[in-house]
């Protein structure tokens, strides 16, 4: 893919995280429903995380909070994957250079 197309695609992904996630269904998911219905929901350990439950502390539990968390999370996923990809690609080049060095 060409660079502009990739930038547009990345922007669309972050846009989904930012603008669509606030309107996603808040109903329990499949596993949560099964856990509620069959009485093992309380086995779940309570845990804290910086943006637990896709909300930003201080912004409450509303749509704005979810939008910021969604946008930040999508950007973080993009950044983390680019970092991993770059490290792997750099290692590949290193390997290739070592190979030619040996010959």
């Amino acid at each position, binding site marked *: 893919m060409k660079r502009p197309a990739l930038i547009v695609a990345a922007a669309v992904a972050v846009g989904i995280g930012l603008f*669509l*996630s606030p309107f996603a*269904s808040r109903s329990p*998911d499949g596993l949560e429903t099964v856990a509620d219905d069959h009485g093992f929901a309380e*086995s779940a350990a309570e845990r804290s995380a910086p943006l637990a*439950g*896709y909300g930003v502390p201080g912004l409450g539990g509303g749509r704005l909070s979810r939008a910021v968390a969604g946008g930040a999370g*999508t950007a*973080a996923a993009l950044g983390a994957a680019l970092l991993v990809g770059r490290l*792997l690609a750099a290692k590949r080049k290193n390997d290739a250079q070592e190979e030619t060095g040996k010959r």
Partner: protein
Amino acid sequence: MHMPDGFVSAPVIAATGAISAAATGFSLSRARREIDDHAVPALGVCTAFIFAAQMINFPVAGGTSGHLIGAFLAMLLLGPAMGFLAILIVTVLQALLFADGGVIVLGTNVFNLGIAGGLLPYALFRLVVRRGPGGRLAWKAAFFAWFAVVIASASCAVELALSKTSPAAIVIPAMTGIHALIGVGEGIVTFSFLKLIESVRPDLLAGIPGSAAAPERS
């Protein structure tokens, strides 16, 4: 179907965690051989899409919601190694930043979403397109995308049963039943996405076994 800590027992965590660790090692070493500067942004964009898509819960029957997994589609587009890394990165971020899925059970969640719901359906899909009659790529992919969700939920249910959290006779039909509905969403999105790409940028599908753009295999 990200599991929180507390649902599965230590032996289940150890076994699934070991398999996930092995798959991670395999994917890293294979991706290291495959990746080029061209593939890096594709990995980034695909991972971002999986994260965003997993936030978009859609309502299904009876006050329950579901969201895409995306692992199977990522593997179709990026190949199994980089597709696995994409779902791995998403699952790690969800657990660490959002408390969506436990940290102790991270390996179990990666097993359910990336192996049961990713590598396994991808391997079966590849077998079917290579051995079976050609054509109808998007239909086949849609079926295996649905199957990926169901098999991931079955894996989750078996782990819950093995952990004695819920009896097998209850949790397996309950989990696979609701996810057979949720998986329809995965099938529709996978189908529509492949049809769209097929019409605008068929070259992007060259990596998919059985696609019209894929190199002929003898």
